[in-house]
């Protein structure tokens, strides 16, 4: 329990840090680009909306910094992220809603799959040291972890999309199909998700396989594993119940740390495949200089990562009594 509370406390602290960072970023930037942007809104938004924008970006505000900050926290807490410049006059929160669904679907599924698969391969590789998997997997994975994510995507587009023409390689679904739970649309969605999903899977899997393997190897040298072997327990049982269960714990923490990198990969893959998720929208906002949207997306992505890490920490607490009792 104390552990969970401590992790929750950490989560709140990092949440606050992210929100504050989001507050200061536009104010710290040279040339104060927000000024020009807010000027574009004049005459097109109501006084109240303009005031929110000015608060968000610290423009023209006669208020002191602490006062701005308080207003900003209030706005964020009520879900008021301002009005989108490019999607004017839609509020940012509405614009973002559409994209979240796509990213959760693609990215969520692919990441979880990558973690499961990567961990699995890592376990097998470590268990059979010197075996086929162990000789091939690590060097291959080392190389794949060095390939830029977007390049993998581009090669997929080239091979499977353009040359072989097996799958569509752009967008989330066929644009002219009517959205809804009809077979045509759902089929189109699944079709469009294959290539970007695979690309994401391949890039993410490398990190976790390697760390899992290394953790497993270290664990396998532990006494209790030797004991289990001496006792004559079945190989698979030792591998899973003894070694893997303990080796996975640092991997779970590693999951948290590497999640940040995988998010980066997801953004690039969405970009290359024009997949209409949150990452793609972020890059669009950047291109269109739609700063309110950009800031909101950054905050959203950060918070999502923080939540994922919190969940991973709680999972660690559940599976590892040591962490619980060590407090």
């Amino acid at each position, binding site marked *: 329990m104390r552990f969970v509370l401590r992790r929750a406390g950490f989560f709140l602290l990092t949440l606050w840090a992210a929100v504050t960072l989001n507050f200061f970023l536009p104010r710290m930037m040279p040339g104060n680009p927000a000024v020009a942007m807010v000027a574009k809104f004049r005459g097109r938004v109501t006084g109240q909306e303009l005031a929110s924008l000015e608060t968000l970006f610290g423009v023209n505000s006669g208020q002191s910094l602490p006062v701005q900050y308080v207003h900003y926290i209030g706005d964020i807490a009520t879900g008021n992220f301002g009005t989108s410049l490019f999607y004017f006059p839609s509020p940012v929160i509405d614009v973002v809603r559409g994209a979240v669904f796509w990213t959760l679907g693609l990215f969520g599924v692919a990441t979880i799959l990558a973690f499961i698969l990567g961990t699995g391969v890592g376990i097998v590789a470590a268990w059979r040291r010197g075996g086929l998997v162990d000789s091939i997997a690590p060097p291959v994975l080392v190389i794949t972890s060095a390939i830029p994510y977007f390049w993998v995507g*581009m090669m997929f587009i080239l091979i499977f999309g353009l040359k072989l023409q097996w799958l569509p390689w752009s967008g989330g679904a066929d644009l002219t199909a009517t959205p809804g739970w009809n077979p045509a649309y759902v089929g189109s969605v699944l079709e469009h998700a294959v290539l970007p999903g695979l690309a994401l899977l391949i890039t993410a899997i490398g990190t976790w396989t390697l760390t899992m393997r290394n953790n497993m190897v270290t664990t396998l040298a532990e006494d209790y594993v030797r004991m289990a072997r001496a006792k004559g327990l079945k190989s698979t049982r030792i591998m899973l119940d003894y070694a893997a269960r303990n080796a996975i714990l640092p991997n779970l923490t590693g999951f948290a740390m590497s999640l940040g990198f995988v998010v*980066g990969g997801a953004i690039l893959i969405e970009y290359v495949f024009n997949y209409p998720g949150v990452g793609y929208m972020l890059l669009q906002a950047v291109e269109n*200089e739609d700063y309110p949207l950009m800031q909101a997306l950054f905050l959203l992505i950060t918070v999502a990562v923080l939540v994922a890490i919190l969940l991973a920490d709680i999972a660690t607490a559940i599976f590892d009594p040591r962490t619980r009792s060590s407090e």
Partner: protein
Amino acid sequence: MRFLRAFTRNPKAATGAVLLAAFVVLALFPGLFAHDSPTAELYQRNLGPSAQHLFGTTGLGQDIFAQAVYGTQQVLIIAFGAGLASTVIAAAIGVAAAYLGGFWDAILSLFTDVVLVIPLFPLLIVIAAYVHNSGTTVMIAVLTFTGWSYTARQLRSQALSLRNRDFLAAAKVRGERARYVIVVEILPTMISLLVAAFLTNALYDVLFASSLQFIGLGDPNSTSWGTMLYWAQNNEALQAGYYLQAIVPGACIALLGASFALLNYAFDEIGNPALRPVRRRRQRALLVRRLSRA
């Protein structure tokens, strides 16, 4: 010395080192290898590979091979520059936290952890978006500012494990000041980990910098692999069938990254003998020897 021997005998390390050395040579003496200026738009557009143009030409009529060779400079400057800077900061914070302990450790660790969980790439994107057209120096600054936390954590753990060793206690008893102990006693024993941290940072700096340039947040007029990919994308090279325009810079990034990753992996193995590759028939013998020592 033992370390060096282990290094040269490790095939991964050797491959990585050779690759890296090759790129460094290219960066230092580009003129020896590429006879064309990378920026001159003299040739016909979108040519395929030929005797005059090893990899063909870009959509703007520039020689791809020359661009790839000259582009090495920017990438290596960023990788080494930002990699070094982040490692220095990571070492400073990680070791200080471990050595000072107590309150300072708590504060610094907390700070590191908070920075660590904030996703790096979106932050880079937002900063690059505001700064706009990041040249090399800005890129290095931004990457350093955001990239040190991952390795700081590792260095802190290592430093922590060293903290109570005898040779440090001896130094303390001798009356050496904290700064002396950190720099002269602790850091040298952590060399291998520092090098590994540098390699990790360098790898991610290469990938992140190229990614930022690819999506257009770098300086499109500069010569680097990331901007080559940016222009290939603009040229719709893949759709038009000019594959080399995209394949060449991507392969370069992958190779350079692989060299860092291989070296890093090799360091891991050298540092942790349990990770070293074993051949099957030796495994049983190893186990027997271990059990007999028990």
